[in-house]
Every structure is written in C-alpha cells, then in structure tokens.
C-alpha cells in the first residue's frame, strides 16, 4: 500500500503508467478491538482517525454496513460554514472549520476544500434583523461574518434576481468568506485512508445486528461477519441511530426523515459561491465539475427509504428559480435522498449513554457534513477519555431531561 502521496509518487505512477495502489486495504475483522465505531461515514471515519492520531488508540475498527462514502457522506450538498448563532454551536462548528482549513495536508489527501464563501439571504426586515444579530454573535465568537446589502450581492453575483418585484425580494445577506464546499466522498476516502495508515481497520459490508450489553456495560457487537468484542463502542450511524440504539435497549430523542438534493448537467462556471435562503428554502452552489448542486428540505414524515416527496423537490426548484431565473432551462441530471436523524433542537448529541462504554454521536440532522472533522475530533476525545470533550459538553443527551436545549433550529440562518 502506498503510504504517502507526493509530487514524486504522482510523477512516478503517471510516467510509468502503472496502476495506483489500493488506498484502503480490505481487511477481515479481528475478534477484539479497543474501540469499535459503528458507521463508516465521514463522522465515524474522522472519529477513528482522531482516536489513532490524537488519542493514541490505534486498535480500532470502523464497521460499515455498505461501502465507504455510500451513505449521507456521499449524498449531501457539501456546504461548510460555521456561522451559527449560539455559542455552543458556533464553537463546535468553528472548531470543525479550523480543522477543514488544514485537512488536505493533514490527511495527505486532497479533499478539495474550497473557501468560496456562503451567502445566507434575508428577504424580510425580520430576516435582516436576525442576520445582523447572528453576524454580531459570530464576530464576538471569532467567526468571520459580515452583513451585505442587496446591491453588494448583485455586484458579486450578477445572475441573482434582486428585483424589488420578486415574490420574496432579497434585502441583504450574511456572508462568511471562509465558508465553502469540499469534495464529500473525497473526505470519506481521505479519512479512511489516513486512519487506515495509522492502523485502524476499516471493514466494509459488515452490518452490526446486535450490541452485547452485560450488567450495564457494553461487551461487543454481533455483525454479519461474526462477533467482535470491545469495551468501548461509538455509534455514528446518522439516520439509523435509533435502530442501533434499540440494539442496546436505548431510545433517542431523534426522528429520521428523508432529505433530498439534486444536481444539474455540468455547465461552464456561472456561480462562484454558495447561496442559501432560509425563507424560500433552497441552497445552491456549483461543483468544480460544473453541475449545480441544489439542496431541498426534509419531508415531515419519518422514513428510512432514502427518497422523499416530489412536492419538496418542486418547492425547492421554485425557490431556486425565484433567486436565479437564468436557471429555468437547466436540466437536472440526478435526484436522490438521504436519511437524516433530526433532534428536537436541531443540534447533535455527542454523548455517553446509560450503558457504560457506549457512546452516541447522532442527531446532526440536515447539517452534519460541515462538522465532519470537528465532530470526529471531539467524539474521539470523548470516547478515549470516557469524558466529554469540552466542546461536546453542551451536547450531552441529558439536555433533553435538564431542559438546557440549544435553540439553534431557527437561528442558524439555514434551511432546516
């Protein structure tokens, strides 16, 4: 296996026209590990990577029922930002943002993190008041943010419709310059390869079917590839968190919903930044490949089906066309859904549970991708020290009993 990519390895493999070595070895599970991570999405792989890199725990297995990057990690709209209102949320997402900023070098894998900025549009006076409040909170928390008016938006994005005659006229926006996008499945591959290089076993096509608990302590898991023992198990299974929790006899404060997105045919560069609107509910960017990446909202009903309703797609397309009439004849290429686990306060759970040695990292809802490195980082420390990382403390599952919810649902300036 190739340990490190470099200009030399690129030149050698390119000139020699030789086959590239496999990035992640295919391994069979051992019978025992120090830590098992259930779920080989971005967050699970990042957890394993930081366990090995920062916590010195390399005897780790990541169990993935499908293939790496085949779940929500490869299904999202790749937007990365940290302009959240609440201190707890903004600290966590900003932690993640700082990790993103060095991630390609850190992983020795180009995750194509592109800080092209994010505009969160405001369409009413109240939107603008909320935006100003959020931008002020961001600045106080050391997160870069500015308020821009509709003229400046038009200057930066000439194709956007800032007409006063629009159904929901654009009045202004918040702008975070350090925000942007990344190559989502590349993030999964990068973390998987880097974790694997540090000794982590990434086991694909291995579904966990039960969690063994004895006297309130976790003992291991039963999988489709046999029983695997571990004293510590971290569950990072997104939409299926409730299913995994049930195996350990636990309930969670989350419900699973379909979240949809779609991409157009590839076009020449037309949109150089990310535009999101909470009020009309749509968000759009253009990938490096040239396709428009458009994200819709969730369906209100529970589902594990990875597909949603046509009316959600229609609503989102209407919103995007309202903002960008020029896209009216763009043809859509693909449309899909992912299953997101949504918490009542739209904030994640990064927490120990009533079962000793069993930890949950779930409830990221519609906005988990941006948090991938930060989530894995704080969850790794939480598992390694059996004590929540300081940034994870507010995200304890007990907040639903104490009442200390983090009221980010309507405050994030984002389509939730």
């Amino acid at each position, binding site marked *: 296996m190739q340990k490190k990519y470099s200009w030399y390895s690129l030149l050698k493999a390119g000139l020699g026209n030789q086959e590239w070595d496999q990035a992640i070895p295919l391994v069979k599970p051992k019978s025992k590990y120090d830590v098992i991570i259930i779920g080989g999405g971005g967050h699970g792989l990042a957890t394993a990577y930081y366990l090995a890199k920062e916590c010195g725990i390399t005897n780790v297995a990541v169990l993935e029922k499908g293939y790496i990057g085949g779940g929500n990690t490869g299904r999202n709209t790749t937007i990365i930002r940290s302009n959240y209102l609440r201190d707890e949320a903004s600290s966590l997402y900003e932690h993640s943002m700082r990790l993103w900023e060095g991630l390609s070098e850190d992983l020795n894998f180009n995750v194509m993190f592109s800080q092209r900025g994010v505009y969160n549009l405001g369409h009413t006076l109240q939107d603008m008041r909320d935006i100003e409040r959020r931008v002020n909170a961001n600045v106080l928390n050391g997160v870069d943010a500015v308020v821009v008016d509709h003229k400046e938006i038009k200057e930066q994005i000439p194709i956007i419709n800032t007409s006063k005659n629009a159904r929901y006229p654009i009045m202004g926006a918040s702008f975070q310059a350090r925000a942007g996008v990344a190559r989502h499945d590349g993030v999964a591959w990068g973390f998987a390869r880097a974790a694997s290089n540090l000794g982590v076993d990434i086991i694909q096509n291995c579904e966990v079917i039960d969690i063994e608990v004895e006297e309130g302590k976790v003992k291991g898991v039963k999988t489709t590839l046999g029983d695997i023992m571990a004293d510590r198990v971290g569950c990072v299974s997104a939409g299926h968190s409730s299913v995994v929790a049930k195996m350990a006899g636990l309930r969670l*404060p989350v*419900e699973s919903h379909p979240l949809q997105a779609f991409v157009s045919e590839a076009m020449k560069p037309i949109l150089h930044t990310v535009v999101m609107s909470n009020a009309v509910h749509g968000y759009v960017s253009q990938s490096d490949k040239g396709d428009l990446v458009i994200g819709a909202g969730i369906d209100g*009903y529970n589902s594990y*089906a990875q597909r949603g309703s046509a009316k959600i797609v229609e609503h989102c397309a209407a919103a995007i066309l309202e903002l960008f009439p020029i896209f009216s004849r763009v043809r859509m290429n693909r449309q899909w859904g992912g299953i997101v686990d949504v918490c009542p306060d739209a904030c994640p759970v990064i927490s120990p549970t009533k079962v000793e040695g069993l930890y949950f990292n779930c409830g990221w809802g519609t906005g988990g991708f941006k948090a991938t490195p930060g989530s894995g980082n704080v969850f790794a420390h939480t598992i390694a020290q059996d004590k929540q990382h300081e940034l994870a403390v507010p995200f304890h599952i007990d907040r*639903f009993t104490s009442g200390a919810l983090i009221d980010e649902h309507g405050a994030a300036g984002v389509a939730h």
Partner: protein
Amino acid sequence: MFLIVCPYCKESRDQNEFSPAGEAFIARPQNPEELSDDEWSDYVFYRTNHKGDHWEQWVHTNGCRKYFLVKRSTISHEILEVAAFGEVTSENPS
C-alpha cells in the same frame, strides 16, 4: 409520494393534501405531578423512530382538517392501514 385514504372523507387523495403529525399513541401523562424528569423527557422528546411498520398521525390539512391514524412502512412508504382515533389504540394496535 403516496395516496392516503382519509377515514372521514373516505376518499383516496394525494399526500400533498395531508400533513404528517408525528408518532401515534403518545398520550399526555395523566399524573403530571408525579412524573420524574426522565419520564417527562421521554414523553416530550424521545420517540420510537421505528424502522418498519409504524403507527403515526396525519391531518387532512386541505380537506376535512381532522386528525387520524395511519400505519405506514417507513421502509417502503406503503400505507397498510388507516383509522380514526379510537378505532385502534396503543394497547390494541393491529
């Protein structure tokens, strides 16, 4: 995307006329004074989030505006049963 038969209107109508209204059979506790914080928390925030056949509530928003019960697969979205309140209960789900 599916059709729902409203048990009151007795007609098969497009899902767009209806709104989902959460898990069924979650009754407000009869003894609020005696409940522990954990029990309150479970009632307010915790849900079964079942993968499979799931009883839930829907409301015929753009029709008769009444709430009713639906048993629907959360895997295939197939609707297996529709009932008015009282026709099925948590003790007697079919």
